[in-house]
């Protein structure tokens, strides 16, 4: 493993982490062996390129954010729909962002397409088949639930503190709406991915077991309950949930987990309805890589307006969010369950008037990564 040793040495040399003695020895080696020196030069050059790549990437991201902010203020005008050449240009520039967007929208369309064709071939036969499958699925999920409950009990009774980390096959975002019952809202299409385990993870990297108590594919809302005993009670939730529709042009911010750490984004309400005039959703204009499924959309006064769900794949910065009124409908359904009659959400947001960074700091504790396998 000479290579790894060399890489390590070159890295520590570049970062100035070597002791004087080590450095002397290293430089002596380089002088003696031109081949080694060549390798070191190459490595240093490469590290420098990597460094520059990183900072340019970060910088471009900030530019994009600044630009969309100023578009919101009207200082910059941009046409909503771009010509073909433009699309390719953006494609090159934001390949990764668009790939994320495409995968989210793709999930939804693939599933609906599959069902439609199944119905078309032989209606009745297939319908029966489907019903049978659904039953099977239901029984399976009940079995899994039993198993999970059992596991939870075991975990609760044992004194072992160390929890095994879960190897996740999917990742999304969710946010707390009731701190007494530990209810977290996320997208229904996210929960569908959980076949074995469902976990929420806070911004400190602590993981907690959760299970879904309510799933509505029509509004794409799911409510999870954190069942883990280790889950500590948080101070009252700082945001409220808006009952009325969002207004055009309202400035909003979002927090979510498009990657392993929490990511902040800004945008504004750009249309009252969603894709193809779907009234469940409203449309946001924001830089596309900010939103991952289940992220909360919050106004400067601390009112939650929606839940980020999907993105349009052929336009830049068009994001759809479920209107917050649908959360109330979900809560009403949950209230009907005997054991959760006492579900309660914050009425007065405590975020109002605070500056953005402290708002983010407060909200970040209530936004969770939802993952599982």
């Amino acid at each position, binding site marked *: 493993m000479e290579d790894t040793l060399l890489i390590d040495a070159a890295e520590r040399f570049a970062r100035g982490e070597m002791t004087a003695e080590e450095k002397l020895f290293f430089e002596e080696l380089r002088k003696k062996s031109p081949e080694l020196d060549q390798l070191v030069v190459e490595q240093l050059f*490469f590290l420098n390129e990597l460094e520059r790549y990183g900072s*340019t990437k970060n*910088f471009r991201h*900030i530019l994009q*954010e600044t*630009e969309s902010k100023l578009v919101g203020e009207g200082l910059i*005008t*941009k046409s909503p729909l771009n010509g073909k050449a433009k699309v390719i240009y953006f494609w090159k520039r934001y390949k990764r962002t668009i790939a994320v967007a495409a995968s989210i929208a793709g999930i939804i369309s693939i599933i609906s397409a599959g069902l439609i064709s199944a119905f078309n071939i032989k209606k009745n036969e297939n319908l029966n088949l489907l019903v049978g499958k659904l039953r099977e699925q239901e029984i399976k999920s009940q079995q899994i639930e039993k198993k999970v409950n059992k596991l939870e009990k075991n975990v609760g009774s044992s004194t072992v503190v160390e929890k095994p980390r879960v190897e996740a096959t999917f990742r999304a975002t969710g946010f707390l709406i009731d701190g007494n019952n530990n209810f977290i809202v996320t997208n229904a299409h996210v929960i569908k991915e959980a076949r074995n385990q469902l976990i929420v993870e806070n911004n400190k990297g602590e993981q907690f077991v959760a299970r879904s108590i309510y799933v509505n594919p029509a509004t794409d809302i799911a409510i999870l309950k954190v069942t883990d005993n280790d889950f500590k009670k948080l101070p009252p939730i700082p945001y409220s949930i808006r009952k009325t529709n969002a207004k055009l042009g309202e400035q909003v911010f979002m927090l979510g987990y498009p990657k*392993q750490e929490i990511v902040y984004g800004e945008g504004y309400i750009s249309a009252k309805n969603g894709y193809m005039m779907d009234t469940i959703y409203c449309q946001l204009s924001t830089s596309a890589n900010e939103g991952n499924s289940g992220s909360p959309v919050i106004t400067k006064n601390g009112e939650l307006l929606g839940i980020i769900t999907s993105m349009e794949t052929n336009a830049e910065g068009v994001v759809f969010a479920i209107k917050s009124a649908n959360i109330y409908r979900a809560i009403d359904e949950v209230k009907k369950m005997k054991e959760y009659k006492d579900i309660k959400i914050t009425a007065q947001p405590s975020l109002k008037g605070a500056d953005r960074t402290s708002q983010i700091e407060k909200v970040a504790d209530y936004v969770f990564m939802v993952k599982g396998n």
Partner: protein
Amino acid sequence: MSNLSQEKTLLEGLAKEDKASIEQIYRDNYTMIQSFILHNNGTADDAADIFQETMIVLFEKSKSPDFELNCQLKTYIYSVSRRLWLKRLQQMQRFGRQTDDVADVVPVDEDLELHEKRQQDFSIMETAMGKIGEPCKSLLEAYYIQKKQMQQIADEFGYTNADNAKTQKYKCLVRLKKLFFAQYKNGQ
């Protein structure tokens, strides 16, 4: 504060990727660039693109150790944007009436040449990053771009300890390097 020292503060902020400074530079200069591009066969979208690219040129310049701006910031931004736009017009063959109104332009060819080279390097690295796949990509980004500690990375990615994460990182880096240089040496 004098105009000059104000500009110096802004540029120092820019080099440190400070959002407020970046926003201020937009506010101070965007309208000027937009009107130049609109008057020269461009659209509002072109203006936004050109301004972004100009900001990247300025950012690269502000980070170099021997950085010195020997003209007004406004003049520099105008010169770079103008040069970038004329070049793009040339590429698109969208020549028309050219209003060479302002004589207040400084030579920026050298800066733009360097910028072009950097952009090329950037896209080579981006392609290589795209090819190495996960978890390599996230792992390398966490270490080299977000500058996280090995222990933290081990926790986040689920490696049993920092040494394991480090070994994995080496493997990924070697692959990235190979991909990068294959492309890089091709382009030379």
